[in-house]
């Protein structure tokens, strides 16, 4: 390679490496703030701040959803299925994808009693897509045994 080109290539490589290192350090420094939500173990473990607006997320624990008969109040438990969970209270219309076992994001404040007072509930879905007629097969394979 021509020496001039080699030196230009080195300059470009140097600039790119330097910029990449700067970005990597910034992302590392801001790492906690780049997470969109607190997972259940951090909420239950006390790492999530109490009384400030935050987002938390988890899966809706089966059988935990309680709806009030005369209002839109709803209470449920979000879990990581690894032993950590927390209770959520919300008043409003839930997203269409809200159901037991679904990944859910809540925005609101964690109370001193450990109950998360949600102002907004968002549904998270994963990259698994399935036609409806395959649903019973997949559930059978997962060993959950519940009909779709």
């Amino acid at each position, binding site marked *: 390679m021509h020496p001039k080109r080699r030196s230009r290539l080195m300059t470009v490589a140097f*600039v790119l490496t330097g910029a990449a290192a700067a970005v990597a350090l910034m992302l590392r420094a801001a790492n906690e703030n780049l997470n969109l939500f607190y997972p259940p173990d951090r909420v239950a473990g006390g790492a999530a701040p109490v009384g400030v607006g935050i987002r938390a997320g988890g899966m809706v624990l089966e059988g935990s959803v309680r709806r009030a008969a005369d209002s839109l109040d709803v209470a449920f438990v979000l879990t990581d299925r690894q032993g950590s969970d927390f209770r959520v209270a919300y008043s409003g219309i839930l*997203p269409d994808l809200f159901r037991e076992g679904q990944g859910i994001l809540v925005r609101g404040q964690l109370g001193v009693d450990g109950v998360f007072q949600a102002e907004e509930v968002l549904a998270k879905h*994963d990259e698994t897509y399935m*036609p*409806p007629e395959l649903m019973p097969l997949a559930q059978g394979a997962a060993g959950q045994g519940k009909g779709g």
Partner: protein
Amino acid sequence: MTLKQFWHRLGSPKWFFHMSGPWQGAFAVLAVLLLLTGMTWGLAFAPPDYQQGNSFRIIYVHVPAAVLAQSVYLTLGVAGVLLLVWRMKMAQLVLENLVGFGAWMTALALFTGAVWGKPTWGTWWVFDGRTTSTLVLLFLYFGLYALRQAIPSREAAGRACALLAVVGVINIPVIKYSVEWWTTLHQGATFKLTEAPAMPASMWAPLLVNVLGAYCLFAANLIAKLRTAILRQEPGAAWVRDWAAGEVRP
């Protein structure tokens, strides 16, 4: 043709112009065929999702647009290195003519993402790792456009844009791994190199056809823009006059 010859010819607008004519048509025809097939298949015949129903179908536009948005930026980054180090004329033309297409694809990915997010997530927009880094990508495209407009000298503008394109490539792995590094509302990658997609073939096959069609559209668009730019750049060159004469009066 040896690799060294190919390398030298690749930098020659004249050689590229003569070589690329048939390719432009082939890619354009392939793009139309693949996109028509994939879109009809995906939007009308693929099964709906068990949870999301028909709103899942927006994946057939969203994923190809997002894949192209990043591929176009990577191409700009490669062209940036070629221009900065080897001063390749064709790289300058690529940097000048590809920004708009990339910006449109990024805007389309963000728009379809919002339209998809409203019925499934429950919100149009959330500042999570994936969506924010994709928004940064759109601003990088805007920056490349603005930088070119701001510098009158073509050569200086080319080098400034090349540098921005190269440095901006850092954002691409951030977009790709954002869903793994941080907790996000956005789901994980649809297509992974290491494992099969988590959906049946009746769902991913039309998506793959659309992604391939989108790449053909990218190639056809780039070749057409480059050929136009070459003609504009050398309107009086002898070979251009010969070519035009041959085309007009065969």
